[in-house]
C-alpha cells in the first residue's frame, strides 16, 4: 500500500480531490483513497500511534471482532443496494479507547471509470472516550461521467467517544448515489455529521439512521445542499432517542436552482427527558424547482421536548433590493444571499477543518452559482 506522498495524481484529479476537502499535502492524521473499487492509499502518519485505518478486507483478516460488526447496523438484506454491496471493499477505522486524534482523518471515494458501479463498505469503531474528526470526499473524475455509488457505513461510538463526520459530495450529472448509513451511540457519546453537496447528481439518496442507545448520547446532522437543474436529492436522517437525556438535532438548508430536493427528518423520542430539534429551510430560485420538507416528530413519553421549524419559499425581495441599493446587480445580490444561506458556520466543524471546509465551500459555491 502506498503512502500519501507516493500517490501520483494528475493535475485534474488532484484539483478534484482538493475540491472535496482532500488535502494532498497531508496535514492529516491518516489518509484513504479508493479509485473506482480499488483501494490505492491507506496511510496512517507515523506519529499517530494506535489509530487504525486499513482496507476493510484486511481488517477482517486482522481483527476477529470485526466480522460480527459487519452488517449489524445496516442489514445486508435491507434493499437491493445493500445486497449489491455484499462483498464491497472500503475502510475500517478503529480508534482505541482513550485515544484522541487531533488532526483530521481524510478519505476519498473517487469514480474514474465510465459507468462504474462503485460499492463501498465502511466501518468505524470509536473506543470508549476516544475522539476523531473525519473528512470524507466523494467525487467523479470527469464531469460527464456516468456511474453509481453505493455506500454502506456502519459507525459504532462507544461511551464518551466523539466523532465528527464531514462529507463533501461532488458528483456528476449521471451519477446515482445510494448511501446507507447507521450509527450506534452509547452513553455520553456524540456523533456530529456535516453534509455538503452543491453539484449535479441524477439521484442522491441518503438517510442516516442514528440510534442513541446510552444515557446522555447526542447527535447532530446538518446538511447544506444546492440542486442545479435536473438534480434530484432525497435526503433525510432519523435520530432515535432511546435513553434518558439523549438529544438530537437535524438542520438542513437547501436551495433548488431547478432541481428537486426532498428533505426528510425524523426524531423519535422513546425515553424520558429527551430533546430533539429540527430545522428545515429551503429557497427555490427557479421555476420547475421543487423542495419538499418532510419533518416527523414522534414521542411516546410524557417528558420529551421536540421542536421543529420549517420554511420553504422564494428568495426575499427585501434582501435582494437591499443589496441592489448598494450597487450589486440582481445576480450578485442573489449569489450573496444564497452563499450566506449555505454558510458553513451552520455546520459544527472541528477547528482543524474549519478553514479547509470554508475554502472548499467557496470553490464549490463559485462553480455552482
Amino acid at each position: 500500500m502506498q503512502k500519501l506522498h507516493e500517490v501520483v495524481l494528475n493535475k485534474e484529479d488532484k484539483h478534484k480531490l482538493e475540491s472535496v476537502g482532500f488535502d494532498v499535502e497531508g496535514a492529516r492524521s491518516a489518509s484513504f483513497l479508493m479509485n473506482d473499487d480499488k483501494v490505492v492509499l491507506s496511510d496512517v502518519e507515523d506519529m499517530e500511534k494506535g489509530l487504525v485505518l486499513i482496507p476493510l478486507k484486511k481488517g477482517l483478516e486482522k481483527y476477529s471482532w470485526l466480522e460480527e460488526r459487519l452488517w449489524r447496523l445496516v442489514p445486508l438484506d435491507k434493499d437491493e443496494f445493500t445486497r449489491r454491496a455484499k462483498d464491497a471493499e472500503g475502510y475500517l477505522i478503529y480508534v482505541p479507547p482513550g485515544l484522541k486524534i487531533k488532526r483530521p482523518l481524510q478519505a476519498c471515494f473517487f469514480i474514474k471509470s465510465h459507468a462504474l458501479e462503485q460499492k463501498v463498505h465502511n466501518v468505524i469503531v470509536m473506543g470508549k472516550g476516544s475522539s476523531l474528526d473525519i473528512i470524507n470526499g466523494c467525487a467523479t473524475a470527469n464531469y460527464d461521467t456516468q456511474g453509481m455509488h453505493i455506500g454502506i457505513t456502519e459507525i459504532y461510538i462507544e461511551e464518551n467517544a466523539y466523532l465528527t463526520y464531514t462529507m463533501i459530495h461532488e458528483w456528476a450529472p449521471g451519477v446515482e448515489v445510494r448511501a446507507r448509513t447507521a450509527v450506534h451511540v452509547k452513553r455520553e457519546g456524540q456523533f456530529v455529521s456535516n453534509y455538503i453537496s452543491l453539484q449535479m447528481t441524477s439521484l442522491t439518496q441518503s438517510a442516516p439512521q442514528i440510534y442513541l442507545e446510552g444515557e446522555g448520547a447526542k447527535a447532530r446532522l446538518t446538511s447544506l445542499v444546492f440542486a442545479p437543474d435536473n438534480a434530484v436529492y432525497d435526503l433525510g436522517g432519523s435520530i432515535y432517542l432511546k435513553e434518558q437525556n439523549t438529544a438530537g438535532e437535524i438542520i438542513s438548508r437547501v436551495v433548488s436552482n431547478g432541481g428537486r430536493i426532498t428533505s426528510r427528518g425524523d426524531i423519535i423520542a422513546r425515553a424520558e427527558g429527551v430533546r430533539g430539534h429540527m430545522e428545515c429551510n429551503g429557497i427555490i430560485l427557479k421555476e420547475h424547482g421543487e423542495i419538499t420538507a418532510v419533518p416527523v416528530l414522534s414521542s411516546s413519553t410524557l417528558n420529551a421536548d421536540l421542536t421543529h421549524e420549517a420554511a420553504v419559499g422564494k428568495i426575499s425581495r427585501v434582501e435582494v433590493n437591499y443589496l441592489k441599493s448598494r450597487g450589486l446587480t440582481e445576480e450578485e445580490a442573489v449569489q450573496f444571499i444564497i452563499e450566506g444561506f449555505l454558510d458553513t458556520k451552520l455546520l459544527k466543524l472541528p477547528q482543524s477543518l474549519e478553514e479547509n471546509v470554508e475554502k472548499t465551500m467557496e470553490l464549490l459555491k463559485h462553480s455552482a452559482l
Partner: protein
Amino acid sequence: MIKKNELLRIENLTVEIGEKIVLKNISMVINEGETHILFGPNGSGKSSLLYTIMGIEGYRILNGKIFFRSEDITNLSIDERARKGIGIAYQHPPAIKGVRLEKLINFIDKESKDIVSLSKELKMKDYLLREVNLGFSGGEMKRSEILQLLSQNPVLSLIDEPESGVDIENIEILGQAIKKLLERHLNRTRTRSGLIITHTGFILDYVKADHAYILLEGKIICEGNPFEIFENIQKNGFTACKNCTK
C-alpha cells in the same frame, strides 16, 4: 433649463403603492453639495419618497420624472441608480443571514478605502465579522447603515431617520459620520449631497442643512430654511404648517 450644478430634480412626482397614492405631485431640486431635510409626521410619505428616488420595487410612478445629473432615471433599476451615485441608509434594514458585514463592505467599496479606520470611527470594528444586521440593536443598525454608505461613497445620500431608536452616545457618532459623508466640513469644494428624514432635528446640530420640506399626506406643504421650519414645528406642530405659505 437644467442648471449646471443641479444634482437631483424631481418633477411632479405622483406615486402609489398597491392601490394607495402615497406621494402627490412632488417637485424638488437638490444641487451639488447641498443637504436637504424632510420633516413630516408618520405616514406622510417621507420614506416613500426616498424609496422612489432609490427605485425600490413596489413604488409605482403614476406621473412625473426623476432626473439625476440631468439624466432621466425614472425607469432605471435600483442597482443602476446605485452605480450612478445614489445611496440609501434604511430605517429598518433587513438582516442578511450568513453574509458578513466585512464581505459586503469590501464588495461595495470601489475605491479601496480604509475600512478598518472607517469602522473604528463608527465603533463598528467588532461587527465586521458579524452577519449583516443580524441581532443588531437600533444604534448598531444605524451605524452599520452609515458605514455602508461611507464605503459606497454615493454622490447623493438618502438617509431615513438616522436617530430613531438611538441613544445619546450613538447620536454623536452618527452625527459626526453623516457630517463626514456629506462633506459638511468642506465648503466650496463640497460635492456630496443628502436628503435626510428626521423627526427630532438632531441632525441639524451636525449638518447645517441648506433647505427643508414638510410632507403631509404625500404633499409638500411647506419648504424653506431648515432651522426656521424646525423651530416652527417644535412650537406649533406639523398641522400649523398647513397654513404657512411656501
